[in-house]
């Protein structure tokens, strides 16, 4: 017997080989069925089941999401990772150009995406997304920043100007989302800089700093997403600078007496776009996912993302949202001819795309923000 084990003949090899193959079949099948892993770098919520669950199931893929907060944080994470780490990158619109300049993203084929279905012509050639007529990032959703407030202590009429943040009754009750870009952008709009809110000469930058400093006695705190959410929910903060419906929308659905408006001085648009990571081996399935997110189905999901809602950017997406959840479409103004229709606000010139400072270094803004927090 032992001799037979040590020196099996051809018949034994065939016999045991067939048996071993039969026994391992389930494992082989399972190995074949192992989902393709896609590494995603995104703001919180984009890799959650409500957004990617159905796509994962239909395409046998699994998203590994790494979340960041803020464009700087995103660029830092990519810079510190080996090339090809991230297959798909969701970035704020204003950071796409830097992603491209650093060579972190792949060129995309415009014909693959529904450019003929965009709700607004700017979305077709969104600033920074194209270079030398080549596409590098695809916008998928957006939202507005303005005045967010507790409807019990601030009227909608008052909220229609950033001036409401200085209301004496709100002393210690005004909160900041702890990021200098949206807050200082809003202060710049309040100073009347309009479309040039990011392009400030020394005098205008000085004036923005003075205006911001004058708000400091009103400020009750500086918060991250969770803190902003909680402080508005429990009424600790009655007004919030630097946010919009992306936070109050979630609370509103929960029954909290909060709302967001775009004031008369103008609002800021945040824009989120998908890019394919440089050297990604999964570019084809990533392209399919971006197409899915721009399909009516994906746009409906995106507009109602559990973590924070956004606006649909395609016509078909908007129509699908109206069919799927007319109440949400009306609440967010995503119905043609509504007064707060985001596209109408854009056409009226009341919304400005978020950007980085043009004449100052980002570091100058950040330094001032630290001084402001310590004041």
């Amino acid at each position, binding site marked *: 017997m032992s001799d037979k084990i040590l020196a099996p003949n051809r018949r034994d090899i065939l016999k045991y080989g067939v048996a071993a193959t039969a026994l391992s079949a389930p494992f082989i099948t399972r190995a074949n069925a192992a989902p393709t892993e896609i590494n995603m770098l995104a703001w919180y919520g984009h890799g959650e089941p409500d957004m990617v669950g159905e796509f994962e199931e239909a395409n046998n893929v699994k998203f590994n999401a790494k979340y960041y*907060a*803020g464009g*700087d*944080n995103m*660029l*830092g994470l*990519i*810079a*510190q990772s080996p090339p090809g780490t991230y297959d798909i990158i969701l970035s704020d619109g204003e950071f796409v150009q830097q992603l491209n300049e*650093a060579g972190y993203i792949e060129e995309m084929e415009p014909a693959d995406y529904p450019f003929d279905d965009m709700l607004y012509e700017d979305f077709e050639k969104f600033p920074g997304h194209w270079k030398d007529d080549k596409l590098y990032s695809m916008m998928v959703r957006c939202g507005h920043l303005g005045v967010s407030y507790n409807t019990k202590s601030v009227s909608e009429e008052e909220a229609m100007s950033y001036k409401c943040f200085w209301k004496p009754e709100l002393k*210690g009750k005004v*909160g900041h989302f*702890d990021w*200098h870009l949206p807050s200082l952008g809003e202060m710049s709009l309040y100073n009347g800089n309009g479309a040039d809110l990011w392009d400030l000469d020394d005098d205008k930058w000085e004036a923005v700093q003075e205006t911001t400093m004058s708000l400091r006695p009103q*400020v*009750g*705190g*500086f*918060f*991250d997403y*969770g*803190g902003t959410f*909680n*402080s508005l929910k*429990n*009424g*600790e903060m009655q007004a919030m600078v630097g946010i919009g419906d992306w936070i109050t929308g979630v609370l509103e659905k929960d029954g909290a007496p909060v709302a967001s408006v775009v004031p008369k001085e103008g609002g800021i648009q945040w824009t989120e776009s998908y890019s394919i990571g440089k050297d990604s081996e999964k570019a084809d399935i990533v392209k399919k996912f971006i197409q899915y997110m721009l399909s009516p189905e994906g746009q409906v999901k995106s507009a109602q993302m559990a973590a924070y809602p956004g606006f649909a950017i395609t016509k078909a997406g908007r129509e699908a949202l109206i069919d799927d959840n007319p109440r949400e479409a009306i609440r967010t103004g995503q119905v043609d001819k509504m007064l707060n229709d985001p596209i109408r606000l854009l056409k009226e010139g009341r919304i400005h795309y978020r950007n980085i400072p043009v004449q100052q270094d*980002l*570091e100058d803004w*950040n*330094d001032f*923000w*630290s*001084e402001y*927090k*310590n*004041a």
Partner: protein
Amino acid sequence: MPRPNTYALTWRLPIIVWQLLFFIGPLLFMIAMSFFLVKNYRMIEAFEMKNWVKMFGRNYFWDSYWLTLWLATLSTIVTTLVAFPASFALAFRTSETTRRWAIFLLIIPFFTSYLVRTFSWYTILAESGVINAMLGTIGIDPITMLNTKFGTIVGYMTLTLPLVVVLQTFALANIDRNLVQAARNLGCPPWRTILTVIVPLAKTGLIVAALFCFILSFGDFVAPYYLGGSKPPTLPILIIDTTKSGQQWPRAAVVAVVMMVTLITIAFTAITLAYRKRASA
């Protein structure tokens, strides 16, 4: 020349290796990093003083430094004073069994996340929270407690109070009861017995407990951010802010090195004080 004791060395080696790998090594790297530069969100090895000059030249850095030092000191004083009566009662006024149960119960908070415990204060300290609801029933207007320095201290105490009570209890329970008895028999009043007999005898343990409280408060990010509203920011918040914007890890390293130097100085002073023998009469 005496031969090294291999047996003793074997047992001591793990802690030495651990400290070298996870404390000394990272500390040296952090010091080196404070001289690096950042270009295109990537750190570049260099030996430049720019980060030190930049951080030391900013008023907000010093404002945060003194604030953090003050809040950690205040937290240490308040926690030590609040903990002492409880520790005293556990050490001298309860049975061995009760003390064991009390210590077990004091350890239980550490089973849950500190962040969760901090967030739970929202429901208690908020203007619509439990305390203000109770004050409202007796006609007192709501008091703002969240997003204040008071909130920060409450958060620090959430982290440190159970630990300080446990350490103080061990220190007090281990002192020689005969000396306490002798003081009382010789007519020393209770408060004086505490101040001149019990506290000096438990000095080492009490100082170590206070030191732990200081270290944990000084380095805590959660309480000043979530209960203090980051208003104004402490050094740990400044580290986060610095890394978030522009990925300035080298500048954050400057803040961290300053924090380490401060803590090492304070810890060294405290330990010297704790183990200093009284001058013999």
